């Protein structure tokens, strides 16, 4: 195995090691300085390796599937993993002052770091796994770390949010597990590629697929399973909110995409893909409308996540089922994946910026942003740039993503989805202007001063989400590596 071939396993080993050390000793600064450059280097190595040599597959312990567990990384997994690396890097840097344990170990200062590094490891484990049961363990790992982070503030409201999340998450994981059990009972393997090769018209496979979908949809907070998300994401400390909203739903969505586009594409009937599309559309509209009505900054951003996750599910009617073989499917599929990446970058930036605003103002009512353009111009600019992506305005990554989905919707004659995408953009503009417009008001002076460097860190994420739109040709090509139905369309 070459050194490049080692990158995937070390992308799991390094954050786990950091998490172990973080349990023992409260020295986050040393861990961040040690782990982050390594993770960046490993991510570059993984992306280069996939770019040059195509999808990677690694049999852990030397045991091939079906006996052992195989890791796999194509363009999609590598892209999600790289996004995770970028977002997590910025988050841990922003989190250092708040959880730095500078005056001796505190409860939150200790607990945050093992949880953050374990979450990082769990995300990478999900993106790299090629085995249904291993994905179950990795997703549980992720869920339990997330639960602990949601409850970290220790207030009644945040603990209640964690319990509500737990109810959905526990139900979701049992449904997923039961689906996996039925698939194993029918086919005697848990490996994604081996399952893809098996013929699956039997009742156990179909019921299993339905259960897996329901379980993952609950974990991704797809409408109508969304009720847990806003209190959980808004109640956590800002760096945790950023991880939760930007990255965690993407993990279960990623597994759902793997399942329906790699393992069982033939089972995606027209009724099923339309149903998922309707739920996605409902999420876009309902999430946006509720976001407009929120009076608290972090709640508004959290409801925006409900809406933005809805777009991801339009990939099913636009690129799944009967659309899979059509020329527009590549555009729709890539658009949805770019939406996931662009949203991760923009939402990470927005929650981190919101955290700084709350810290400066001392509260999280919407009025906290009054006069931001004068008092914290860098943060105001961060809000503006990430809003551009969330609204889908050019030249952002969100624009390219929604443009690709829009053109596919028109090409396939599914005008309803096009209307939903356009309406969603308008509604996003409506709720985001509630944040952006008051930044130009005159207001009382902020209570705390936030340094320029801490403000600039979220800005880099927002700027990356714009860059994703400007340089979208390479990401588009990269996402196609290892995609089952090779790209037939491209960027116009």
């Amino acid at each position, binding site marked *: 195995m070459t050194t490049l071939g080692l990158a995937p396993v070390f992308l799991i080993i390094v954050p786990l090691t950091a998490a172990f050390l973080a349990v023992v000793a409260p020295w986050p600064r040393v861990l961040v300085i040690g782990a982050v450059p390594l993770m960046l280097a490993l991510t570059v190595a993984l992306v280069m390796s996939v770019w040059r040599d195509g999808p990677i597959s690694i049999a852990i312990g030397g045991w091939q599937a079906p006996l052992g567990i195989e890791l796999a990384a194509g363009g999609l997994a590598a892209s999600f993993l790289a996004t995770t690396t970028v977002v997590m890097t910025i988050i841990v840097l922003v989190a250092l002052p708040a959880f730095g344990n500078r005056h001796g170990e505190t409860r939150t200062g200790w607990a945050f770091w093992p949880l953050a590094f374990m979450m990082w490891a769990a995300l990478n484990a999900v993106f790299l796994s090629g085995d249904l049961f291993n994905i179950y363990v990795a997703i549980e790992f992720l869920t339990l770390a997330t*639960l602990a982070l949601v409850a970290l503030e220790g207030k009644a409201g945040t603990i209640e949010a964690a319990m509500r999340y737990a109810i959905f998450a526990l139900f979701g994981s*049992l449904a997923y*597990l039961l689906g996996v059990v039925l698939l194993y009972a029918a086919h005697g393997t848990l490996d994604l590629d081996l399952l893809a090769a098996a013929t699956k018209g039997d009742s156990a496979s179909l019921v299993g697929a339905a259960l897996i979908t329901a379980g993952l949809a609950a974990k991704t907070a797809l409408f109508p399973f969304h009720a847990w998300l806003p209190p959980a994401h808004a109640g956590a400390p800002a760096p945790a909110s950023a991880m939760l909203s930007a990255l965690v739903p993407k993990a279960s969505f990623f597994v759902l995409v793997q399942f329906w586009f790699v393992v069982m594409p033939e089972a995606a009937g027209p009724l099923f893909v339309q149903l998922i599309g309707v739920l996605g559309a409902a999420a876009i509209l309902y999430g946006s409308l509720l976001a407009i009505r929120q009076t608290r900054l972090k709640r508004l951003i959290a409801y925006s996540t409900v809406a933005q996750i809805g777009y991801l599910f339009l990939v099913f009617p636009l690129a799944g089922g009967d659309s899979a073989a059509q020329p527009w499917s590549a555009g729709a599929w890539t658009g949805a994946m770019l939406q996931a990446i662009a949203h991760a970058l923009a939402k990470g930036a927005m929650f981190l910026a919101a955290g700084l605003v709350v810290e400066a103002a001392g509260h999280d009512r919407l009025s906290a942003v009054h006069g931001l353009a004068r008092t914290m111009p860098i943060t105001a600019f961060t809000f503006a740039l990430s809003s551009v992506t969330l609204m889908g305005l050019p030249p952002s990554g969100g624009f390219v993503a929604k443009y690709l989905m829009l053109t596919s919707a028109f090409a396939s004659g599914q005008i309803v989805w096009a209307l939903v995408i356009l309406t969603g953009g308008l509604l996003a503009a409506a709720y985001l202007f509630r944040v952006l417009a008051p930044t130009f008001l005159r207001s009382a002076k902020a209570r705390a001063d936030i340094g320029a460097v801490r403000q600039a860190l979220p800005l880099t994420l927002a700027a990356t989400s714009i860059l994703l739109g400007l340089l979208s040709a390479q990401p588009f090509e990269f996402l196609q590596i290892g995609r089952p139905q090779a790209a037939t369309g491209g960027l116009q």
Partner: protein
Amino acid sequence: MTGLETSTIFAYCGAALIGIGIYGFLVRRHMIRRLIAFNVIGSGVFLLFGATGARQPDLGVDPVPQALIITGLVVALAATALVVALTVRYAHLTKRATLREDLPDEQGGS
């Protein structure tokens, strides 16, 4: 799977346990009762898993489901432990062991 072999009996028993657990999960509001229901569903899934792995008595039970069930039991215990701690802490703060049923944030946010 049909017939009266040990594996078939316990596979369908697992399906029944899943149903019982789901009912408890939906009807009960007390978090500890919900955790019991969660564990009943979980053990139903495991029983079904193990029983489908025992379809050929002369081969013995498939060791892969056995190992995965042990892993699953530990994961379920871990989840239970965290939710128990959340519930106890919540009760310390609010004197409640149930979630409020209204969703205040859907009415315009507080």
